[in-house]
């Protein structure tokens, strides 16, 4: 059951997306303007505004990390999902599905920590952890999505003389797309969160001010980072929800 089916109608969701995006952009560009407010709220904190790096840079670095890792996860994940649902790779399907299910019980923070001994500190281990963890929901949903294509539909396609590639491209992928995108959505949202923790292994992200604030006991830093990363996740989630809706063909997502 997708959450989209249970929440508000599309029109009000679109308003939410626009409003949150506007707020996110305004805060990324104009957080410094709020300095007087933070000073007033936390008079004994000096400085009350994170200044080691601009919030724009932090956000872009965060986005770069998430985008790059998601790009790799999605290409590898969809390819793997396709492989194990074709005759040649079907033997690997149970193992890959189980692996994806067990892998997702691993805490993201623990996966991040385990990559450090292998890949060191900084951008690379965070990227590796994000790719590894982000793969799992994509693989799982690709397999599940392709599995939901009715066998009668496939038979009809074959009966009409479509080639294997035509069936894949024109029938299977479009019909599986909503479920695959739902997997990408989960993967990206988790990665936005894990990238935040990535600042503990030395990656520069929106988590950097949060960690700096926690270590240095500076609450304004923590709030500034947390609000931005929270908004970023919400905007991304709302955008994916719209994308999912576009690919539902008379299913729950459309009806709700």
């Amino acid at each position, binding site marked *: 059951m997708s959450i989209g089916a249970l*929440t508000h109608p599309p029109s009000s969701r679109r308003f939410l997306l626009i409003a949150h995006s506007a707020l996110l952009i305004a805060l990324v560009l104009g957080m410094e303007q709020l300095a007087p407010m933070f000073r007033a709220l936390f008079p004994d904190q000096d400085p009350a505004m994170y200044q080691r790096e601009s919030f724009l840079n932090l956000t872009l670095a965060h986005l770069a990390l998430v985008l790059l890792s998601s790009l790799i996860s999605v290409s590898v994940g969809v390819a793997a999902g396709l492989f194990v649902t074709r005759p040649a790779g079907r*033997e690997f399907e149970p193992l890959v599905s189980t692996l994806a299910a067990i892998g997702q019980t691993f805490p993201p923070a623990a996966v991040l920590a385990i990559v450090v001994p292998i890949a060191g500190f900084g951008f690379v281990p965070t990227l590796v952890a994000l790719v590894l963890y982000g793969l799992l929901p994509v693989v799982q949903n690709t397999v599940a999505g392709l599995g939901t294509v009715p066998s009668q539909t496939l038979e009809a396609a074959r009966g009409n003389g479509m080639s294997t590639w035509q069936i894949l491209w024109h029938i299977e992928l479009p019909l599986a797309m909503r479920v695959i995108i739902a997997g990408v959505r989960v993967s990206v949202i988790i990665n*936005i969160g894990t990238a935040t923790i990535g600042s503990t292994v030395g990656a520069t992200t929106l988590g950097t001010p*949060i960690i700096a604030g926690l270590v240095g006991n500076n609450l304004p830093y923590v709030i500034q980072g947390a609000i931005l*990363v929270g908004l970023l*996740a919400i905007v991304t*989630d709302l955008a994916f929800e719209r994308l999912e809706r576009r690919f539902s063909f008379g299913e729950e997502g459309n009806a709700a």
Partner: protein
Amino acid sequence: MPVSAFRLPTSSTSDARLIANRVLITLLCAGWLSAWLLSFATLSPNRLAAGQAVMLRDAASEWQFAVMLVLTGLLTVAAFKRPLPRALAHAVVLLASLGLLLVTLYSLGDYAQRALADTSSAARISQGAAFWVIVFCCALAAIDTFQRTASGWLLRLGYMLIAGGSVAMLFASGHFHDLSIMREYANIRDDFADQLITHLVLVGAALGPALLIGIPLGLLAHRHMRLRGALFSVLNFFQTIPSIALFALLIAPLSALGNAFPLLGEWGIKGIGAAPAIIALVMYALLPVVRNTYAGLKGVPPATVEAARGMGMTARQVLWRVEIPLALPVMLSGLRIVTVQAIGLTVVAALIGAGGLGAFIFQGLGQYAIDLVLLGAIPTIVLAVIADFTLQMLVVLSKPAGTRR
């Protein structure tokens, strides 16, 4: 037409194939390749210095290497169509992969004992990449076999208990005493127990309120359609916010509350520590609990509920005797999601001073002490996997006998 019709061509070609189990062949190749190319262990002069790689052939003794050769040979034979019959081949894979796992673990510990006998006591021996790959491949071979044979959960449970038990016995015997990670463990033994308990207490403290609030909310969502949209929007909102951000955002209001009412502060309601951690964990846990309660109740056939009312059951009787028993499996899979999720999120809670196994991870990252990081990360993963497996069993058992198929 059943789906299997489309799979027929595959199985018929596999009849003509020489190799019966390509998954096993792949795993064997991966294992040997890693043993050939990657380090099995690393030997470093002290706790923090970089180490020097030791390959499997050099680390394992003659007899250990011979046993590994024999076991992988058996596995290779089992992967082929002939001469072993299928059932026997599956049994061989299960036993040989467990044997290989144990002998790999044993030879690592044994190597550490032999190597440290003639070097300085500050030297450290750690497990290398090849070690992890081999252990991983053994586990995958066993899992894949269980899926091929579609064996019941009783057999799986038995196998897991035997495997877990033998590994635990190796640890208990002190065989790994000279491994770097175990030395690290010896240093923090008491602290480790404390943090493990803290971790579990945090998870438990979050699950209780989550169930107490979430189940009634799920019931409400099922009964009142108007409420549903708003409720799920709000809960999805919580779930979307990255954990560390939610933990962090709770610090400010809670510290304000603690300062304004010193009594609350004395009770532990303050900016950092357990209070924000538990509140955030509850907020995360609500969505799966509410969603699965709702989905479970929604899955009860309307005709069954109507029959129950038509028989003269009161609303309460319908709920307790019909709806909840039928919804229980779905509700329990919600509990499973939430438990696994809470174990993972509690790691992050260490960043706001709540303690738990995450404390070792972040402490280790801060000191560049990899063993300490692993002492936090591996037990968390084991904890999550055990919780997942146990609750999965519970889901199976909770299915009313009449609906278990």
